[in-house]
């Protein structure tokens, strides 16, 4: 077995394990990595910080053998290396846990770990032996994983542990984690940190990509900041702080949203009355009541999977279930049968939770995605043909206005980074000048700068008089933006409180069902 093999350790605790020299990667004319000189030391947890499109993933993909550098050199354990495939990187001892997991849900944990490996002699795959090996390995690192479980039935946190086990089983001692906490709940994040610290204790080197400053601050030993493909700083965590890092990442100071007046009580633009939803005999929503006024942001806090998605989809008419009861009112009048088209025509904008699955048509261009809700309008349509030049103009305007980082306005949405994809969705929804906006996790997986931008745009919409229903698992975000706050737990919303009266601790307890 590879993981028990002890490598000759000639490196002292703080010697560099990996260095890049003038590393360059271009995509067309876009410089994704611009002459990077990065040093990672043995046995440290090294954070790579940067905004979306700063080049973090490109850099990591080169280290892990998924991309080849155009120029420059990577040296690993003192020797120059050139990884032509992930296999070569893996053989050298570099493993990567990708942001979108590289797991096969239909297979068991043991099968996922063992793909491409031999266990024992001969052509046969020994499931029981693999399970025993994996159990032994995962226990030695304090990772709780059931090797015989089907991956598709595991929680996201457990799946991530499987990914870590996969790299360890292949003998990795340099592990890259690409935005590992983006998909985790706070307790799962704590658990991950415990595991990462245990790995560091055992001499593993960890590269931790993130843009959550507080996480980086509490976990990492050293931190490097990328901005626009360049390395702008690399320092021990002790010698810096979150504020400085934020400034380095964004290139300017982050201004927290200014306090703003409480909106005058007005007729609700969106009202949900006694909304219940059942699926397979499970009550997903139970008599939910909500009202969002004109120029008001109502934040819904809650741990992922407590009915947030179902609530938003039910309002948008995306819920195919006939098992829906209750009433949805837009600006005072009942919507008898909510359908996405009706809701759009009534002026309801929608930012879905999963931007790649539900928000965009990835192979289509920015412009095409932008007009998905308006392509029938005279602005973009003449009889049966689309007005291509108008669409391009709109796309170029959106790229300028929303600062979407893209080589051209015709670029497919699928090739943009996550944050820029979200900006395309935001541009599309705001182009409609909605009366009501349903925003689910509008900044999930986004860096400080881009999140701040999205927050500012949402507040501008509020000023304009749009009523916003904000769903977020980030309590900070809910508190920063909302005028009133509700907590959703197991499909129920108890009450909505004014932000001034809300208290972070009590909201936190309600999120846990207490």
């Amino acid at each position, binding site marked *: 077995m590879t993981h028990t093999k002890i490598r000759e350790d000639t490196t002292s605790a703080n010697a560099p394990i990996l260095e890049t020299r003038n590393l360059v990667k271009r995509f067309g004319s876009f410089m*994704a990595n611009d002459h990077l000189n990065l040093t990672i030391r043995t046995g440290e947890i090294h954070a790579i910080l940067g905004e979306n499109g700063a080049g973090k993933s490109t850099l990591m993909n080169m280290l*892990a053998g998924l991309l080849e550098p155009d120029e420059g050199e990577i040296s690993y354990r003192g020797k120059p290396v050139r990884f032509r*495939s992930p296999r070569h990187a893996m053989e050298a001892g570099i493993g990567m846990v990708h942001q979108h997991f590289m797991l*096969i849900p239909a297979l068991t944990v043991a099968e996922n770990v063992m793909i491409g490996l031999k266990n024992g002699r001969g052509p046969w795959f020994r499931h029981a032996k693999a399970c025993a090996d994996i159990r032994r390995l995962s226990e030695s690192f304090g990772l709780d994983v059931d090797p015989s479980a089907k991956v598709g039935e595991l929680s996201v946190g457990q799946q991530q542990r499987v990914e870590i086990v996969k790299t360890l089983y292949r003998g990795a001692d340099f592990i890259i984690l690409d935005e590992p906490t983006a998909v985790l709940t706070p307790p799962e994040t704590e658990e991950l940190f415990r595991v990462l610290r245990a790995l560091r204790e055992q001499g593993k080197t960890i590269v931790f990509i993130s843009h959550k400053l507080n996480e980086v601050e509490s976990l990492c030993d050293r931190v490097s900041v990328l901005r626009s493909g360049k390395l702008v700083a690399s320092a021990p965590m002790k010698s810096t702080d979150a504020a400085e890092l934020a400034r380095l990442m964004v290139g300017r100071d982050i201004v927290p949203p200014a306090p703003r007046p409480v909106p005058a009580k007005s007729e609700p633009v969106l009202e949900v009355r006694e909304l219940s939803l059942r699926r397979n005999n499970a009550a997903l929503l139970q008599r939910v009541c909500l009202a969002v006024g004109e120029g008001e942001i109502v934040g819904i806090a809650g741990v992922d999977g407590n009915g947030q998605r179902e609530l938003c989809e039910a309002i948008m008419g995306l819920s195919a279930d006939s098992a829906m009861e209750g009433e949805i009112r837009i600006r005072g009048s009942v919507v008898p049968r909510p359908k996405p088209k009706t809701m759009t025509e009534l002026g309801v904008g929608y930012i879905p939770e999963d931007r790649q699955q539900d928000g965009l048509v990835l192979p289509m261009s920015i412009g095409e995605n932008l007009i998905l809700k308006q392509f029938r309008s005279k602005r973009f349509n003449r009889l049966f043909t689309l007005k291509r030049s108008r669409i391009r103009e709109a796309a170029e305007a959106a790229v300028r206005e929303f600062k979407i980082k893209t080589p051209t306005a015709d670029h497919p949405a699928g*090739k943009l980074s996550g944050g820029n994809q979200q900006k395309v969705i935001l541009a599309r929804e705001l182009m409609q000048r909605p009366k009501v906006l349903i925003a689910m996790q509008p900044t999930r997986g986004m860096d400080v700068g881009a999140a701040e931008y999205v927050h500012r745009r949402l507040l501008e919409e509020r000023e304009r008089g749009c009523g916003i229903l904000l769903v977020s698992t980030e309590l900070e975000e809910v508190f920063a933006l909302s005028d009133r706050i509700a907590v959703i737990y197991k499909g129920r919303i108890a009450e909505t409180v004014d932000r001034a009266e809300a208290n972070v601790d009590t909201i936190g307890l309600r999120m846990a069902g207490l």
Partner: protein
Amino acid sequence: MDVATWSSYLASALRLAAPLLLAGLGVLFMSRSGILNIGMEGMMLIGALAGVVGASYSGNAWGGLATACLAGACLGALFGFLVITTGADQVIIGTAVNLLGLGLTTVFGRSLLGMGTETVKVDSFPIIRIPLLADIPLIGPALFEQNALTYMALLLVPAAGMLLYKANWGLAVRAVGENPLATDTLGVKVHRVRYACCLLGGVLAGAAGSALSLGILNQFTENMVAGRGFIALSAVIFGRWTPSGTMFASLLFGGAEAMQLRFHWVHVPYQFMLMLPYVLTMAALAWFSGRTKQPAATGIPYKSAANRNG
């Protein structure tokens, strides 16, 4: 109806199921690696002709089987090159293979075997009677008095199961069919696995064709596969992409076909009986295809990780 009638019905059901099963196993391996083989029909047709040609030149059915398997392997390699290496659309290539199969076998069938009314009769697979077991009433003759290829087809089912679920290679096949990128990052050569499955699928398609022309009809006739390639495809779906499921589905479809041959009810027009296997296939697909999940990467060409941009 008496025991003898039932017994002979079962025997012919099994015999007619054999080509479906062989073809189904071929489709199964390709599907599990993420390749949709719409072209099974054409591959079987070429296998059927190659079997007859091989048997008539070599003078025995085994020579025919070898020729059919070789022809199938060539087609599998061609199919693999087009859909794996060039990344062409699998449905279009599959359709092209079907048209190619029909055209090639018509031309070469006429030029090699003649156009006359007298068809070339060739050596067929020998019937092997297993002593004692074949004397069991009702099922004895059906199960233990079959031609060699039928036994082979049945024995391939556990072999395929072992290969897919108990061997390292089978794990690689299943992984490639679900998520080639993830499998590639784990050091499996995705294209190599898919090529192997195409070759295996081609060989089994050839064998299936020869099971038809050397095991059942003992001659080649134009378009003799008559939709069985597609029925095999649906047997795999109906069988939920497992070897044993594919076997049961093949037996069901074979049974429907045998019913049409064996039973003639006066008050049912025979055209309806002819429709039976096809109607059953459609019903099975309508009922089952929504309930099972095909391998997630089906039909999607894979470009290796290092060649992608971004």
